[in-house]
């Protein structure tokens, strides 16, 4: 199947005439004046050429030989050259490569293929049909399906449309998916996705840490500074991915106040973690113990691949950790400091007993799950990222009782 898909994709690419060629054909090598074709598809242009040359059945370039093949019902070199010249005039300069021209006998004219293709548009309405195409490299119509089990349904639709079966090739292919990222809307929720909230006129973007259970409530962990007020519950509404109606996913229900007094430095307010907990809204799906798995230094995510949290661990100097965040994606580095007190610039806040690692991050990565890969996709959760330079709150600090969130269930199977 892979080979077949590849060959079709190749043929489609060829039909767009994007492949440069080194060969020359003196009779038709002169540059043509630029044509204005802004509102027509390539098929429309071919159909127009087919009006002038009724036997024309399509054209494609062979990258292996550099030869331009022109399908003609009655192949003749002079007609082929005239077709190519007409195409050069009708298309943008450079669309048709300068190359040797080879007429090839075709069974169907492009006018026939175009008419049949227009009539079979409802084939794409069948679930599992990926594409329909006038295949210029094969002088046929092509229907791509996800599964050959769909062939009878496609054939039925072709028959209803009056399209001869022998003019159609049905191939198996992968569905076309839009490339999505951590910044897009995803359900169920997992760690690493973009979340947002408002405060006054401002919109803020952060990253969902992990889906978790706290005191029987299903929800997710996020940074305390990713709520309307750092420290204290003000029922901040959390959205995924952007602030918009219908994208609400949770409401802040836990965000312990910052405390004063020992061991907090004089004049400062302290906590052992920058963490809060939001309860899931009714009907919002979320996957316990899952973190979006993206490739290194990427934010592209297919909505499925996931790291699986199988345990929790404290950060130790020298251990490699990674984080997944909406801005810089999956980045890794070694733990460089543990149990370090950090002042937060521009505030009187001190985060006690934090860790710091050498992974990169940027604005919007706040809340990123920090973890170590144990084996394959299995990871140990180590904390929640909050600060520039790879500063994060260890998971042990997040789950302290009293001043922090207390015990959480974070593992995929509920075992931790």
């Amino acid at each position, binding site marked *: 199947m892979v080979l077949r898909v590849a060959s079709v994709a190749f043929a489609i690419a060829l039909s767009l005439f994007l492949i440069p060629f080194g060969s020359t054909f003196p009779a038709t090598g002169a540059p043509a004046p630029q044509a204005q074709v802004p509102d027509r598809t390539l098929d429309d242009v071919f159909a127009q050429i087919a009006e002038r040359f009724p036997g024309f059945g399509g054209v494609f370039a062979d990258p292996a030989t550099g030869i331009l093949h022109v399908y003609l019902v009655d192949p003749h070199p002079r007609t082929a050259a005239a077709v190519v010249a007409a195409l050069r005039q009708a298309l943008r300069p450079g669309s048709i490569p300068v190359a040797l021209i080879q007429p090839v006998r075709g069974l169907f004219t492009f006018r026939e293929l175009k008419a049949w293709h227009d009539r079979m548009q409802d084939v794409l309405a069948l679930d599992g049909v990926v594409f329909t195409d006038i295949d210029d490299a094969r002088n046929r119509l092509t229907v791509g399906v996800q599964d050959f089990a769909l062939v009878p349904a496609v054939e039925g639709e072709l028959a209803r449309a009056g399209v001869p079966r022998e003019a159609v090739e049905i191939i198996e292919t992968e569905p076309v998916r839009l490339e999505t990222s951590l910044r897009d809307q995803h359900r169920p929720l997992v760690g690493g996705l973009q979340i947002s909230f408002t405060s006054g*006129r*401002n919109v*803020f973007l952060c990253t969902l840490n992990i889906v978790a259970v706290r005191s029987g409530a299903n929800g997710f962990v996020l940074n305390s500074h990713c709520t309307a007020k750092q420290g204290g519950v003000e029922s901040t509404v959390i959205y995924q991915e952007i602030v918009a109606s219908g994208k609400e996913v949770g409401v802040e229900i836990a965000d312990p106040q910052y405390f004063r007094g020992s061991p907090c430095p004089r004049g400062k307010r302290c906590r052992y973690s920058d963490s809060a907990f939001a309860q899931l809204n009714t009907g919002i799906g979320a996957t316990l113990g899952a973190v979006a798995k993206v490739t290194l230094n990427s934010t592209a995510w297919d909505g499925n691949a996931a790291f699986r949290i199988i345990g929790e661990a404290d950060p130790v100097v020298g251990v490699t950790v990674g984080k997944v965040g909406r801005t*810089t994606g999956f980045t890794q580095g070694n733990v460089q400091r543990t149990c370090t007190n950090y*002042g*937060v610039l521009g505030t009187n806040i001190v985060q006690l007993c934090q860790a710091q690692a050498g992974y990169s991050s*940027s604005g919007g990565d706040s809340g990123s799950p920090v973890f170590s890969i144990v084996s394959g996709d299995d990871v140990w959760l180590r904390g929640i990222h909050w600060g520039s330079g790879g500063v994060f709150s260890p998971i042990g600090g997040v789950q302290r009782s009293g001043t922090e969130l207390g015990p959480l269930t974070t593992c995929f199977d509920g075992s931790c």
Partner: protein
Amino acid sequence: MHDCARRGIGVGPLLAAFLLSSYLAGCGGPARPAPPALVLQLVAPERVRPGEKVVLRLILKNVSPNPVEARLDGRPTHDFIVRRPDGTEVWRWSHGQAVQDILQIRVLRPAEELAFEGVWPQRDNNGRPVAPGMYRLQGIVRLEQGRLASAEQNLTILP
């Protein structure tokens, strides 16, 4: 904490349409001119007495006729740098402290300003008092796609 490698150049799709003012400093090559939509101005005294706190004020202003979406990288999003005339860094407001990695989206109306403040206690990054003389001041605002820096301004600490 704020090296260029860490910040990278993550282009925000919306803000990218607007860029920016003054110049984008550091982080990936020479300064490059940009259309004047946002301008950054540093307001600071020209002379101070030894030991006197130097109040620094940074103003980010939308000078375009249209609303501009600013994606402010980190909280706080701004920073101040003091250098000697030869360019050696003496003090940086953010030195030794962490910045929260949040991303703030703020739409500035035409002529609207955002103001950021800081104080230089006339000490270096190690906390030692600095000597009288000439210093160069600069303010920075971090945006999702890079840093916006003010023009440098001279400051003289009187003998």
